[in-house]
């Protein structure tokens, strides 16, 4: 094994480790919902190659209003799926789409884009 091979191998392994850590284990951006006077829990989410924030904490039994602002035209994010709440919504580009739901059970519910690539989760407490 020559020096170049050693360098390539070590770089490759380091990159792989980084990819695994970065996508699976690094900390996520979490946000808690803000309750309005009428008791609705509101959260603003920006959609651009992903959801920010992508972990949303809400309380059980209170209505939740999620405002998704899609800040891109990329077709990957054009659909929003929240299968646990039977929601499939088209998100128009550069527009805010409101999604309302009432979480009855505690738990973590994933929401994704139409193909399940972009992911976020709704944590109901």
């Amino acid at each position: 094994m020559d020096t170049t091979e050693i360098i390539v191998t070590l770089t490759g392994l380091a990159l792989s480790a980084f990819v695994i850590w970065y996508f699976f284990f690094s900390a996520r951006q979490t946000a808690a919902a803000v309750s309005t006077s009428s008791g609705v829990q509101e959260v603003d989410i920006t959609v651009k190659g992903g959801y920010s924030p992508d972990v949303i904490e809400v309380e059980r039994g209170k209505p939740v209003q999620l405002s998704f602002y899609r800040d891109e035209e990329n077709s990957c994010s054009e659909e929003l799926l929240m299968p646990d709440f039977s929601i499939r919504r088209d998100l128009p580009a550069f527009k805010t789409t409101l999604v309302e739901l009432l979480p009855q059970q505690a738990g973590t519910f994933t929401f994704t884009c139409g193909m399940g690539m972009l992911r976020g989760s709704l944590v109901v407490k």
Partner: protein
Amino acid sequence: MEPTTKTETLDIEGMTCASCASFVEKSLTRTPGVQRAMVNFATEKATIEYLPAQATPATLKEAVVKAGYGVTERAPDTSAADRQAEIDQQKALAYVKLKRRFWVATVLAIVIMPLSMLMLWPAMMARVNMQWLNYGLLVLTLPVLFYSGREFFTSAWNGFKHRAANMDTLIAVGTGAAFLYSLAATVVPGWFMRRGLMPEVYYDTTATIIALILLGKVLELRAKTQTSAAIKALMGLQAKTARVVRPDGQEVDVPIEQVQLGDLVVVRPGEKVATDGVIEEGRSAVDEAMLTGESLPVEKKTGDPVFGATLNKTGSFRFRVTKVGADTMLSQIVKLVEDAQGSRAPIQRLADKVSAIFVPTVVVIAILTFVLWFDLAPVEARLPLALVNFVAVLIIACPCALGLATPTAIMVSTGKGAEHGVLIRNAEALEKAHQVNTVLLDKTGTITRGEPAVTDFVPAEGQNAGQLLQVVAAVERQSEHPLAEAVVRYADAQQAPAIPATGFQAIEGKGAQASVNGQAVLIGNFRLLDEAGISLSPAVRRQADELLGQAKTVLYVAVNQQAVGLIGVADTVRDTSAAAIKRLQAMGIEVVMMTGDNPQTAAQVAAQVGITRYFAEVLPSGKAGKVKELQAEGRIVAMVGDGINDAPALAQADIGLAMGGGTDVAMEAAGITLMRSDLQGVVTAIELSRQTIRTIKQNLFFAFIYNTLGIPVAAGLLYPFFGILLSPMLAAGAMALSSVSVLTNSLRLRSFSPAKN
């Protein structure tokens, strides 16, 4: 000219009792410019008609606040159709842009390809300057990368910032790597040569991959719009205007949004019914196929409900509006289908789990492929081989096929179901229905019509049947008893002329009496005649016993103290029941019946429709228990009931099918709602479910097998044995076609049509 008014709906908060509502209403009515205000305490909504010149939504809100209550701010309230129109417009625009990017990439790739292959003709090669050729290719590739392919890079970068990786990540990294290598080989060829490497360029790979992936996207987008075609068709059914009768009798066409509860609407032949309501005047035949899948027009008369979007065929009528906007049957169907399309099928779980980790995993595999090739290949070829295989792995992996496999099939089939009057609540219900091996039918209202009908009209010897029927009908027309109604319907069907009856008197629990043509007529059960001291002749008695033996209800008719005839009444089996049950049995499903009736009646009906197993004398509270009993035998049970009385049994069953015109209750209780009161719907539902699950399985199989075979081949696993390497360009072609093929397979469900008997 009358000034035009506007209508505003406000959501009121803080109302605790009905008097609060009237308080808010008063406050609103006193506001200048308000013509009419109506506050509904139950829905917490105020509907206000006002003159826009004198009042604005802001002053209306002020009035509510002044009364001590609040107004909930609502999101800009665009109708579903408007929202859809905007989305469609955006999608159409995106499609045009995508096509343009595709064509730019394709044309340039077609030029780049042959130029890159000049080395195949050594004679030609000798004449061109390698260096200049590479620069030429670079210039041609730049627009492909930065115009056609820009979206892949921005999307990958945006995703990366969110720690998300998608298909674009793979394409961006793959084409980016090929491009950067080529750029280096173009700009500093000396560096390569000093290390004994040919400064090869991969511009053709970069351009072709982008062109092919864009081709895949174009095809995919076109196919995807078709998956939701059914729901768009449903939304398009909505009438645009309604012809409202004003209090002064004037008929005015108004936009559908302005139609209000309680309005009287006129519908002429050939027109669409504007919204849901009840007929007040007139009769007609209405085509309800768009809602129920029933192909024959339905007769409608005063008191019958009509539904928005259905088509009035023959007569004219006026109806009172009972539901508008989101409450109408059509809106509810659209909502239900939309919800179903957003739900997740359990079969999808594995694909979901794989999708979630797919892209980063592929990136790691690609990096390791690069390292292994670099370490193991001969020194002079190791860098190009490592690069080519690295790119091939990234490009061939297709998470899209996995992601599209289930939802597209669910979308097509739920839409298809709605078209045939089968409303599927969610993907889980659809999936469950394909496993069903036992169908439990509630007799009354499902197998049978659920309303009594005259089956036998038996005049005693020497009586004129036609005259007797006239006499009987004359008495029964005055009665409100369901059995009497059955007799009247029968008489009408026989076109017996109506004659008057006088002195009608209902005798509680026994029957009725009246005088027709001066004759005293008695119609009722045996006790009625018995107590009147009328005896039956042996012949009549024998005929009565025969009818009773057939589990029919017998009405006895006496004229002038003499028994003159019998009427057999029974709940009749629907015309389609026997055929549908036969079809279910042919599908390998056991059909079981349950009823509250006595065993005799149960046996009779069961035999008539070809059912061998049945439960008789089941109390309403015991229905769910019977479902459990069947489940305990290890069966997967579909329960078919009417949704209102059968809710617990429908819920207990593995899958509940509610029959009967989509009442809210039925839709809530059942996994599947059949809009048409007809067992054929059960057959349709199960067949649709079976076909859908088959399609999903094919899709998933294809997506998994494609990725599990494609990635190792692209990594060069076959090279040591067969010398086979996958060109990144071929990988791009395969990738482009993989998601399109899954979509196309799902779209095949559009040709589903239920088996007819």
